[in-house]
């Protein structure tokens, strides 16, 4: 029962080290990756002969440099174990990505399986991405500002209302029916009204995103708080805890896993609302860019914006995952994530 060995405690909480990867196995998988990139490059060079060379340039450079990196890192990783580990993990997904790009190019520019102006080849998308980078960057920046301000307001409001509803029975009695009736209306349904009533489209967009976030955050915070195990509260009371401690140091941490589910749901809702608001009202941002480019029939740009959007949204999602991992370390090993 008496554990004198101090290492034991730390050993339990530090994550297990991944097994080392052998050099030979790593080289083998690596050559598959380099091969897939080389294939994509060859297909591209063949297809590109029928296309305007100016639009093909960037993609050729891109595939060429990826191939170069793949070839260079092959010997480097023999010496550097961390790089080897990293490559080993990412390798299958990177190979699949190279094949996918190759396939995309074949069915668009290559055999023209899809109606052409609407489905540009990866080379055209990359070309638009690079030539129109200033406007794309600007749009991304505007989307980010709008999203973050809307999300922040929504989360703050949602946490406060969720806490009140979850903790106080009278607030719950009056607040819950209201929440159940008003909450499920999709935030985007308010757009026509919001555009008319509010002083500026920017303001109404922030409010709509906040509304979209507010509902799931409130719902899950309230349920998390009100489902706090009574015995935790009893324990805290017998240890001398006052109301502040009970709410913020017992109920809130106990509800945190639930609150994070609300934050994730709210994030999804905020993406949707952001894009719709930008498409119909706000005159900036990625949503606006997509519909603007579509108006000019520049589908390369449409896809370029979609690619940016995918990266943008998934980065934000990843950040939220990291925050959760940070705050819910104590759950590790209790719940499968």
């Amino acid at each position, binding site marked *: 029962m008496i554990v004198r060995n101090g290492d034991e405690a730390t050993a339990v909480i530090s994550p297990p080290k991944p097994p080392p990867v052998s050099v030979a196995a790593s080289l083998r998988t690596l050559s598959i990756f380099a091969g897939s990139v080389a294939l994509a490059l060859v297909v591209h060079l063949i297809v590109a002969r029928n296309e305007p060379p100016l639009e093909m340039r960037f993609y050729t450079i891109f595939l060429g440099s990826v191939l170069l990196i793949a070839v260079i890192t092959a010997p480097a990783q023999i010496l550097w174990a961390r790089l080897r580990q990293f490559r080993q993990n990412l390798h299958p997904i990177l190979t699949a990505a190279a094949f996918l790009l190759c396939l995309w190019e074949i069915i668009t520019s290559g055999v023209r399986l899809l109606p052409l102006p609407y489905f540009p080849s990866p080379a055209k998308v990359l070309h638009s991405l690079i030539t129109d980078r200033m406007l794309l960057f600007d749009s991304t920046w505007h989307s980010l500002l709008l999203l973050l301000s809307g999300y922040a307001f929504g989360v703050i409001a949602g946490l406060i209302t969720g806490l009140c509803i979850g903790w106080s029975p009278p607030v719950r009695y009056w607040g819950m029916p209201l929440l159940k009736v008003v909450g499920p209306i999709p935030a985007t349904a308010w757009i026509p009204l919001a555009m008319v009533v509010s002083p500026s489209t920017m303001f109404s967009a922030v409010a709509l995103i906040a509304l979209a976030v507010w509902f799931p955050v409130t719902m899950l915070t309230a349920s998390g708080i009100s489902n706090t195990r009574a*015995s935790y509260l009893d*324990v805290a009371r017998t240890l001398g805890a006052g109301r502040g401690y009970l709410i913020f140091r017992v109920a809130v941490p106990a509800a945190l896993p639930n609150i994070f589910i609300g934050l994730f749901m709210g994030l999804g809702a905020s993406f949707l609302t952001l894009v719709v608001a930008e498409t119909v009202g706000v005159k900036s941002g990625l949503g606006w860019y997509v519909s603007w480019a579509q108006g000019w029939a520049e589908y390369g740009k449409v896809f370029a914006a979609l690619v940016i959007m995918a990266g943008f949204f998934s980065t934000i999602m990843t950040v939220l995952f990291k925050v959760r991992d940070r705050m819910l370390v104590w759950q590790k090993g209790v719940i499968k994530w």
Partner: protein
Amino acid sequence: MVMTPDAEGSTLQLRDVRKSFPDPGDPVNRRLVLSGISVSLAAGELVSLIGPSGCGKSTLLRLIAGLETPDSGELLIGSEAIRRPSAERGLVFQDPNLFPWLTVRRNIEVGLVARGLLQEKKTEVDEFMRLVELEAFANAFPHHLSGGMAQRVALARALINHPKVLLLDEPLGALDAFTRMRMQDEVLRLWSARRSTTLLVTHDIDEAIYMSDRIIIMTPRPGRIDQIILVHLGRPRHRSNPEFLQLRGEILELLHFAGGERMKSGKAHAPIM
């Protein structure tokens, strides 16, 4: 009855305490759980509470802790009536109920943080970690602990407030026989170091005899005090000592669990435990 001058504990008096709960199956009548409990504990005394399941032992402890209010009767600590939960009455539940989001150390600190005394008593945290021998696990989260370790954390967490009254609700019930006996010694060691007035609920007659100054035996629900048995053995006690075994036999006899004649006599006592 043991009374030491340096006891941290204080006297605990119950006078005709009654408690009922709404009966889910009967909307009109309430279900009486405790009917007229009267007993006093001297400062620093360790008393065990034994009784059949559902007779209201946990309810009695929750009343003393201030988590429930009695229908009638008085509960006094020293000369003060119990109205609400307070740090001066520590309760250790059958389930350790550690906060899973806090490390072992932070769990033990809860009482100090809640009362805003952490800065003042920082050194005491180390002292209690040492007392329950968990220094090596200071930064581990509760799900990394074994049942016995978790229960020791729960004990330390209650003890750090220096409660005048310590209420233990079957704190060792979930442990295997060996861990249980070791923990009994630990609880005794902690108790003799601090001398809180302690009320220990248990289902184990050996544990009650081994640990306590007196044993309260309760009747089935509605719970009343059936007997109070004085354990006149010196400390430290030996589980195989003839006097110990003799007392054990007497208590089993009282409870009609001695065996053999129980079948014949068919006493009206409900089966216990």
